[in-house]
């Protein structure tokens, strides 16, 4: 199966600054993949490159098997909801649907009107007068009604209140359940993605720090607490991701392929957020200490 997004050595330069540099990443299709990373990690740049709004300065990127925005066919394969969900302020909701229909040969009119009906808003209302949540839903409608193979969403819920956020994710997941589309969505908040995503890519300073299946990540990571101990003395099947020590105690987040039997350790389960933060945190020292990065093969 072709990857949803596959980039090799991808870079984008603005003046003297690199918004993304030497980024190599592969996001599998058929998943809801969360692209997580701190602000400035290059998430938006990567996604804009993927939909062809930007042209790379260096490197290559293939999206749903084709070059980004290479032609009408490729544009039809990829649906995009941009950051802050831009719409045409002066155009009504109905105008937007007509616009989508006029600009997309694969437009599904029934799907669009069905989705807009759940928005509970006047079709004649101007997009500029919609609430943030409604506007995001409208942008999502435009992106899904063209029946893409891959749906890319850039921080879709960042600016929404909790209720609108949940509604948005509900309608996104319901759509995915119905048509089985690949999804890549970015967020700087792991909590937004925890339930929605089954695959996570953590991007820090253009580098993939962690990429893999969420369930597998949760099953293989543990936090262990016990008397102070040198991380190097742990069994070989345990890899330390993050460690902190007091003079008596050691707390470590480890990746392990087997249960931890050592009675000295108090073993705790970790949340996705714990895992992601552990891989994200202290990446500055990653190169010097040789902190491992994880690639879970799928």
């Amino acid at each position, binding site marked *: 199966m072709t990857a949803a997004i596959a980039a090799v050595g991808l870079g984008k330069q603005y003046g003297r600054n690199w918004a993304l540099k030497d980024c190599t990443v592969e996001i599998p299709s058929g998943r809801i993949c969360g692209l997580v990373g701190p602000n400035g990690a290059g998430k938006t740049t990567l996604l804009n490159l993927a939909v062809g709004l930007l042209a790379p300065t260096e490197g290559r990127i293939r999206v749903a098997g084709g070059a980004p925005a290479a032609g009408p066919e490729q544009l039809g394969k990829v649906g995009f909801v941009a950051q802050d969900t831009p719409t045409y302020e002066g155009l009504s909701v109905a105008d937007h649907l007509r*616009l989508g229909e*006029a600009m997309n040969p694969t437009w599904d009119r029934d799907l669009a009107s069905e989705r807009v009906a759940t928005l509970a808003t006047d079709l004649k209302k101007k997009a500029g007068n919609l609430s943030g949540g409604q506007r995001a839903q409208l942008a999502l409608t435009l992106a899904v009604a063209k029946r893409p193979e891959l749906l890319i969403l850039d921080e879709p819920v960042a600016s929404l209140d909790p209720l609108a956020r949940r509604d948005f994710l509900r309608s996104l997941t319901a759509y995915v359940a119905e048509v089985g589309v690949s999804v890549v969505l970015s967020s700087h908040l792991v909590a937004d993605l925890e339930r929605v995503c089954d695959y996570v890519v953590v991007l820090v300073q253009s580098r993939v720090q962690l990429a893999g299946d969420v369930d597998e990540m949760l099953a293989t990571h543990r936090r262990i607490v016990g008397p102070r101990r040198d991380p190097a003395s742990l069994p070989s099947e345990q890899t330390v991701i993050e460690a902190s020590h007091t003079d008596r105690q050691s707390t470590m987040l480890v990746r392990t392929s087997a249960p931890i039997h050592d009675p000295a350790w108090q073993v705790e389960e970790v949340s996705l957020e714990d895992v992601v933060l552990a891989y994200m945190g202290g990446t500055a020292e990653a190169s010097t200490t040789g902190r491992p990065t994880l690639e879970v093969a799928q």
Partner: protein
Amino acid sequence: MIWVSWRQFRSNAIVGAAGLVALTVVLLLTGIHLEHLYSTFKAERASCTLSCASLRQNFLDNYRHVRLLGSVLVGVPAVIGIFWGAPLVARELETGSFRLAWTQGVTRRRWLATKMALVGLASAAAAGLYSLAITWWASPLDAVNNNRIGTALFSQRGIVPIGYALFAFALGVVAGLAFKRTLPAMATTLVGFITARGLTEFLLRKHLIPAKNATFALTSSRGIGFNLSHGQFSLSPNGSSFPGAWTTGSKIVDASGHAPTAAFIQHACPDLGRFAAPPGAHAMPAPGSVDRAFSHCIQTIGARYHEVVSYQPASRFWALQGMETAVFVIVAALLLAGCFVLIRRQVA
């Protein structure tokens, strides 16, 4: 995609159409009356004996205020460039809606081409209709004045306003793409348009077709003048050519193309210093008392020198209109082609 472009342009189009309709109504009502006045004037002129000049002036004084609509036409292309051209892409870039537009199932190139074609055609149509209406309305006045070529009227008549409008529109679009912001694009469009128009008006137009030359003998009736500067005399040509023509240059030369030297003038007209006005005055007329001496002086100079006048005859009005329109349309096309290069580069 045509619908999308139309929907986004609709409110602008309505404003433009409303303006054109109002203009047409005013010009139609006054224009019909003006036609009527013109036929009356022609009948009176055929039989006039004494007050022909004031009859003419009276006719030309009709609808002075409506005539200002012709001057307004000069600004119409600039308005089109600023309000239709500059925001065309710049507003999309500014508001971020390009991220919506460019990720639909239509290529960026087709999106741009459709918008350009629709709004560009509207620009040409608006300026063309305006010019058509004014040209028709003013035709009686222009016929009497016989001054459509070589004056500011040239750019308020015929087809050149279409070229200007297309150029201003293209300038606006390309500036919008270059600056990615509407306001700087608007300012650039205005400045660029005024510059281009000024250069055309004062430098380019008279060279579009090589000027014709006419040679006039120097006689006292042709009324050439003498200039005195730094104690030396020179001749200033009369400069008039033919009725309705546009004089683009004139000079007094001999058979080999040389102008008379100050020494020659002094020699031919030894009495010049006597009836010279105080230093600094120029184009001194010949007062009655020195008429004879002056005639002699001109005769002496005229034996060797003659006046050459370069001009564009009135009959070249449409040829010049066509040339100038073509120049502006070609430049507009080049600018629009440049937009496709710009939009392919990264924009966000």
